[in-house]
């Protein structure tokens, strides 16, 4: 597996250095410890939003730092959650006096490291609330697991909570909006070929020429089921139906449909999946009111995609539509 990298140990630092130069109007990147914050610093009186997690999911999260979304992002090593000594200064940098919401994807590592950092921030007299994103319906019996994983739905949480903070919500209000998104967003993903972690140098799992992994996460973990390779329409059904069923969508509801690329699948294929997912929703009498298609929550160069559906209401729709200006999401 060849990569455009120098020393794999520097992969995250090198990439962030380039990112900082390319988006100097939007972000500042702190090295040692590594975190990304808004170029203008914390916004006084606004609730600060901080997210983070392992690297390898770019543009998540650093690509979403900017107006109307995150105030800081904390990238760990590839697929490894960041440490408390990175998270704490990010929380401090995001604090404009109105408290900070941390948006954490539900993985043991992320949960434990953010937990520790939040304890330290609270000792530092910063008001901090936290939400856990757990949108992956592939994790079926969450009683017997570490709970559902956070995957592409995280983007919706960050965008909508960001807009809620932007319009002046207080910490409790912004947290409640984030929780409402989490309660109404579900995802499911598929891998056609595994990614390779830089320092490992070979694919994270082995997949035959005619096999696909259904129910994968975003860390090159094997999925829930391995099935025979199938057409885009069939694969899309395997993704969309569990999502729509789990959300218990009923006729007349409005949703955001987000087809996310895992990094190594051409955009053109994502639109094929989108087209089929949309028809499946319409057959259920559900209106696709908002759409997003692209590589936003990736797993290095994994080939595959995920389908995310967010049940909308008027408020969530307006917050989704609110202006955003970040490296990776802008309108």
């Amino acid at each position: 597996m060849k990569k455009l990298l120098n020393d794999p140990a520097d992969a995250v630092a090198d990439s962030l250095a380039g990112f900082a130069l390319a988006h100097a109007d939007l972000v500042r990147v702190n090295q040692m410890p590594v975190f990304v914050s808004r170029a203008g610093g914390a916004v006084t009186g606004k609730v600060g939003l901080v997210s983070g997690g392992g690297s390898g999911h770019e543009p998540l999260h650093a690509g979403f730092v900017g107006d109307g979304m995150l105030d800081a992002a904390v990238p760990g090593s590839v697929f490894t959650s960041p440490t408390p000594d990175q998270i704490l200064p990010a929380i401090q940098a995001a604090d404009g006096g109105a408290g900070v919401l941390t948006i954490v994807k539900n993985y043991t590592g992320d949960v434990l490291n953010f937990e520790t950092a939040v304890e330290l921030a609270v000792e530092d007299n910063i008001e901090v609330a936290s939400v856990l994103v757990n949108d992956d319906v592939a994790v079926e019996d969450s009683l017997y697991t570490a709970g559902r994983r956070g995957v592409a739905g995280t983007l919706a949480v960050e965008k909508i909570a960001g807009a809620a903070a932007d319009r002046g919500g207080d910490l409790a209000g912004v947290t409640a909006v984030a929780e409402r998104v989490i309660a109404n967003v579900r995802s499911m993903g598929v891998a056609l070929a595994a990614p390779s972690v830089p320092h490992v140098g070979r694919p994270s799992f082995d997949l035959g020429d005619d096999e696909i992994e259904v129910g994968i996460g975003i860390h090159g973990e094997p999925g829930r089921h391995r099935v025979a390779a199938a057409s885009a329409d069939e694969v899309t059904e395997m993704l969309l139906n569990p999502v729509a069923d789990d959300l218990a969508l009923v006729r007349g509801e409005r949703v955001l449909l987000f087809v996310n690329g895992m990094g190594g699948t051409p955009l053109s294929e994502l639109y094929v999946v989108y087209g089929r997912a949309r028809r499946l929703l319409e057959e259920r009498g559900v209106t696709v009111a908002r759409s997003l298609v692209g590589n936003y929550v990736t797993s290095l160069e994994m080939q595959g995609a995920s389908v995310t559906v967010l049940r909308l209401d008027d408020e969530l729709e307006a917050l989704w539509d609110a202006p955003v200006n970040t490296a990776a999401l802008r309108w």
Partner: protein
Amino acid sequence: MALDADWAERWVRRTADAVADAKDELTELDRQIGDGDHGENLHRGFQAVVARLDDAAAERGTGDERTVGDVLKLVATTLMSTVGGASGPLYGTAYLRAAKVSGRVQIDSPAVVAVLEAALEGVASRGKATVGEKTMVDAWQAAVDAAEAASGDGGSEVDVLQAAAEAADKAATGTIPMIATKGRASYLGERSAGHEDPGARSTALVLGAAMAAALSGPTPADPRSAA
């Protein structure tokens, strides 16, 4: 002969070596049922630990007295800030709790047991896992049980650590048939069975290093040569 801070330092340096040697093996285990970074995570952490021990050795005055807890606390804070992932806070908490009960210049057999008990308590409370969930808790719990028995039988510090290391090693192997219900492997459900838990294996390495450090005895000169 009771164990001192030099033993603790030898323990930690041996652990760093053992992790470096086993890095690919740990990563491969994690690749099977996790995300393939456990070896790299621990290696990054223990390399940082060694670097800080070297710095501390260079700064330390000849007369300065160190406790076992001083060494373990340095390990705890270093792992906490360099490992990340699940194992960073888990091992970090283990060493932190262990440091709290070993703020002494010398520790005897019962104190060694207390150190292991504190580490187990730290891991279990942080990770909210119990025995049988296919995590490092399985190895720590087996080690503590064996250590308590060895100490109760009047065993030396070496006996206690040997019992702990052997039990941890066996317990790590014992995670193979288990279905994970905590950590990243739990997402695999039944597909997690048939693979050894990487954290249980690394715990066995840690305890094997503790025993080896006790067996190798104190060395007079540069602590690095004892590693």
